[in-house]
């Protein structure tokens, strides 16, 4: 089965190819295979698969990548809209059934 793609043209992911030194760590950390290396420079291939986790930006040693991170979770938005404090409560990404950690 192919890769999941959520909405198109929404990710805030930006790559400054001029800054990139081609270390390749963004290829390593991205859980959705967004990057590839093209002659010692990183390129974005399928940006619509980006989930804005921020792993790439956090690990790029020259800050060539920027992305506005946040949890892609409707409940979190509802909670923050209602003024509840822990806006990132609904993290249950690991299928652990009733032993899920938060919420």
């Amino acid at each position, binding site marked *: 089965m192919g890769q*999941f793609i959520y909405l198109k043209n929404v990710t805030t992911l930006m790559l400054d190819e001029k800054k990139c030194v081609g270390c390749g760590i963004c290829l390593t950390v991205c859980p959705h295979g967004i990057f590839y290396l093209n002659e010692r420079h990183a390129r974005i291939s399928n940006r619509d698969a980006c989930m804005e986790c921020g792993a790439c930006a956090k690990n790029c040693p020259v800050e060539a990548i920027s992305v506005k*991170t946040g949890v892609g979770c409707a409940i979190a938005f509802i909670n923050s809209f209602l003024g509840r404090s822990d806006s990132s409560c609904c993290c249950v990404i690991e299928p652990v059934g009733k032993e899920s950690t938060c919420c």
Partner: protein
Amino acid sequence: MSFTVDPGLYALGSPDRHSPVFVTANYKMSFDRLRNDLKNRDSWLLVLNTQGINVWCAAGKGSFGTDELSERIHTSGLSRIISHKDLILPQLSAPGVSAHVVHKNTGFNVRFGPVRSSDLPAFIDSGYKATPEMRLKNFPIMDRAALIPMELIIAMKWMLIIFPFVFMLSGLFGSGPFLSAAIRHGFFAAVMLTGGMTAGTIIAPLLLPWLPGRAFAMKGFSAAVIVLLPLLGLFSATSYPFPAFAEAFSLFLISSGVAMFLAMNFTGSSTFTSSSGVRKEMKWAVPIQIGCGIIGFGMWVWTLYAA
């Protein structure tokens, strides 16, 4: 019951100064899974204090982060115990851990291992190299199915609160004696609402890749159509006195609104929805859901009353 492990350094088997170091969260499931996947391999486990939250979530919140790792390297006295400078972290901790900053802080090299700890043996055996598949976070049907019970329990709690009102309103506004009206209209409404709930919490997650629409609310609506239309057909096919078209339509509105809302909430459990995307989806989906609820409810009460 405790779901946490004390942070610190643990020995797995009988590791020595050259054994690899694996870093994990102090969520018991994460720790146990890692321990299990590394069976018969002497190694060190460095457990960070993530307040009992799993790796991926803790990394997102920052508690599985650069600072905590740097701290823990110092407090555990790791550099006196091992003779090398390499740490292996789960790839999904990368949103919280900046490898080059950890190196600057501590002199240790962070190496990101595979996404799934079950791939660790293969990763180690190939000389600490991950295949492209090991680097991808997918969301197979089994993982989605495992999330259903939790989604269902939350939704069912709400249903249990709502159902008494549904039966009460049916009895009050429906034609005929209270009890018979409550049962006749209330049963129909309860079945339709349960159908909407099923669509949003079971059908939408299971059929996620195949349902039409990109937005989860849209997928929820598709799932609602799949569930509710056969239900309506069933009602008209049996000898059950088929309710007026308006009553059926109003309940379809409410129930598909419920399905859209519940499916939209599944974004929190999915592994590929971006924050910007969810925000964009909610901008149009939430007003539609509220509209479905209010218009559907008004229409339903009116049909009961008018009948």
